[in-house]
């Protein structure tokens, strides 16, 4: 029986009080509650404080380049469908440097889960604006204030993501549930996670978020299969910030297009050069 100790990784180098600790706990909880063994899980992270998360767990880990966790993650899933593949980014990593990969992975609907630690700031490089910094947010590199932010959830919904959720690092229990749902969902699952940065973002603090976040599940009649309603919720950002599953639909995955993947994993396929003999004959 897998326990939380099986996922015990290296000692973290995050700042005390960092929102990442809540995300780390929720990720471990989710994997344990889904009874996944560490060897069955692959975490692919980018660069930034979020990118270090897999090192503080214990599972297969590919810590990739800045902005690039999604491309190796989707390909590793194709190579071995048995793996539970989780990509981990920050807002700069995922929505800035990796923006194009983000869009196209959702469009193609690869069967992976994508955790984006969204602290609206660059933490690792000590306090520059990020793609999700609020309009007018003044930083060392944006003395005139940040331009209007990207809305990752709205972008995800219009791009074709089939599972679009938002969690809050300050609510580990709720976040654990979302991560479990995301992993279980067949197809690309985006979980954008509001993550207070205690060192560099003195605006969007735990307190700031706590005053605003609410759970969609508490709104009895919320229908997460209605795309236009979901889009409206995704645009809601101000006095009230929705969390939970904004949008979910069942649609076929990228992997399901390929007959070879229906028959087993790619990595277990035998290699036999003589198989191509018939192709050579076509050139005679």
């Amino acid at each position, binding site marked *: 029986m897998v326990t939380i100790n099986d996922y015990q990784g290296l000692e973290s180098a995050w700042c005390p009080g960092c929102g990442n600790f809540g995300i780390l706990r929720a990720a471990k909880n989710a994997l344990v509650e889904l009874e996944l063994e560490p*060897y069955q899980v692959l975490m692919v992270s980018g660069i930034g404080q979020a990118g270090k998360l897999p090192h503080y767990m214990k599972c297969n880990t590919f810590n990739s380049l800045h902005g690039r966790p999604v*491309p190796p*993650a989707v*390909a590793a899933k194709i*190579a071995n469908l048995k793996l539970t593949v989780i990509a981990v980014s920050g807002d700069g990593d995922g929505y800035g440097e990796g923006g194009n990969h983000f869009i196209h992975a959702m469009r193609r609907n690869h069967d992976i889960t994508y955790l984006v630690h969204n602290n609206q700031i660059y933490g690792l490089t000590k306090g520059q604006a990020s793609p999700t910094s609020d309009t007018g947010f003044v930083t060392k590199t944006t003395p005139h204030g940040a331009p209007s932010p990207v809305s990752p959830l709205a972008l995800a919904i219009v791009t074709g993501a089939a599972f679009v959720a938002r969690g809050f690092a300050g609510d580990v229990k709720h976040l654990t549930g979302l991560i479990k749902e995301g992993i279980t969902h067949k197809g690309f699952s985006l979980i954008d996670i509001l993550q207070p940065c205690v060192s560099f973002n003195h605006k969007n603090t735990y307190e700031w978020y706590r005053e605003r976040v609410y759970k969609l599940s508490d709104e009895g009649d919320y229908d997460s299969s209605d795309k236009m309603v979901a889009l409206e919720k995704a645009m809601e950002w101000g006095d009230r910030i929705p969390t939970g599953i904004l949008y979910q639909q069942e649609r076929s995955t990228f992997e399901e297009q390929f007959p070879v993947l229906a028959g087993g994993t790619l990595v277990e396929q035998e*290699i036999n050069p003589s198989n191509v003999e018939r192709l050579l004959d076509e050139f005679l």
Partner: protein
Amino acid sequence: MSLQINVMIGGEAGQGVQSAGFILAKTFSRAGYHVFADQDYESRVRGGHNFFRVRASDSEIAAISESIDILVALNEESIGLHREELNPSGFIIFNADEVKDVADNKLFGVPLTSLAGDKIMLNTVALGAALGILEFDISILEKVLGEQYGKSDSGNANIKAAQAGYDYARKNYKGSFRLKYPHSSGISGKMLLNGNEAIALGAMAAGCKYVSSYPMTPSTSIMEYIAARADEYGIVVMQAEDEVAAINNIVGAGYAGVRSMTTTSGSGFCLMVEGLGLAGITETPVVMVDAQRPGPAVGLPTRTEQGDLQFVLTAHHGEFPRFVLAPANIEDCFRLTAEAFNLADIYQTPVIILTDQYLASSYATVDKFDLSRVLIDRGELYSENPAEYRRHVITESGISPRAFPGMSEALVVTDSDEHDEFGHLTEDADIRNGIVLKRLRKLNGLDRNILKPWRYGNESPEILLIGWGSSYGALCEAVDILKERGMDAGMINLNHLSPFPAEAVADAINNGTRSIVVEGNATGQLASLIRTETGRKVDGKILKFDGRPITPGYIIEKLEKEGL
């Protein structure tokens, strides 16, 4: 001089220049001849000017010839553009329905449009006419047409069109052209294919299971060939959103244990450079094909160059081992691609295959590839206690046995940051030194796998031509021409550029009194590399960077003009 014929088909994009050229090449190949064919096209789908040259001979040929025996001009423009390339005995087939008032004994008019009925088959009528003049056995062409267009109406209509052109030529051709083509050669069972197809077959034979690429001329047909057969052969081909994704895709699949490849051209490779280093530091096997075209930036998109050599040798910041292979010809495309996957797996490092538009899209007849010679070596795999697995364990050879994530309880951890033996990021100075040296130690093994350069012509010659990659055929033929003129000539052609075969090159240059590098670039990149790697300076350089292939004629002309 052996018996040979050079046919050029010229026309605008959309007129079927490529398909007619291929069918003609296949027809000659089926008749038992050695064939070499190349294509020249512009970056457009309709209009412009394209041509396809087919050279057939009863002896081995590995390059194109600039002079033409028969020009098949599908439009009027082609006549003017290529008239000067005709041999003294050569002539032009043109469309008499469109081009009027010609009084020129080099021109033979065939009413292509009216004989074709449908203008889509104009090219086929012209092929039939060319073979009619040659009194070639038309049944070979009919068989090839049947295979190409199927047994449908389209196939039959094309066969009829070819027959119409053939009959017309037999009846009306009264010219002086007398190069009869005897179709009785003993050579048979040859494959006719281009460089990209050979690379695709090499990858498939080697068990490449995942291809991710962003379409880019002239590499795209590798991806397309595999994609069309992927379901049957258990392969996943993915069109990536960009080249950055493509390289990171194959690194992910390679890490997960699947043989993976990406295909691109120079400026796509520029975007892949970041991921190339990721493969280097994470020690992930990947195979990358750079089918070069002239740069910088978009350059000449549909043309050829050997301008990326110095770039791919050093691309990326930092230091890590890599292989750079440059196939000399179509057999090499197959053989080196298949071997690239072994090298990548054994040394857990990127392998770059450097071809160019010329090699990618030219066709040649080759002996059927011997699949029994394609050996599979996945390198060292970990089979000990999974709980103790260290992905980057420091070993004497520098090679750390691989495990694949999810395939055992061994946890496979790696990082684009510098990492410890377990794969976890670290900034410890001693660990950094140990891991860097471990990665570079693999070079000692890499050295053992260096291929000796191809050699041709005289040993220790007075004139030594030195080339790399696709210029192989042109160099061989240039040597033949020099020898016919009584000169003591030889050549070496490098198909392995990193690690560099320094010893073999130094020996060859020591032996040659005059060493002349022949390269498809403007700065002499191989010449610089030879200087760096061997300390020796070559005596001359023949360079070409107009986007057109190096030909034997060009080499000879340069040797003469520049007194080399």
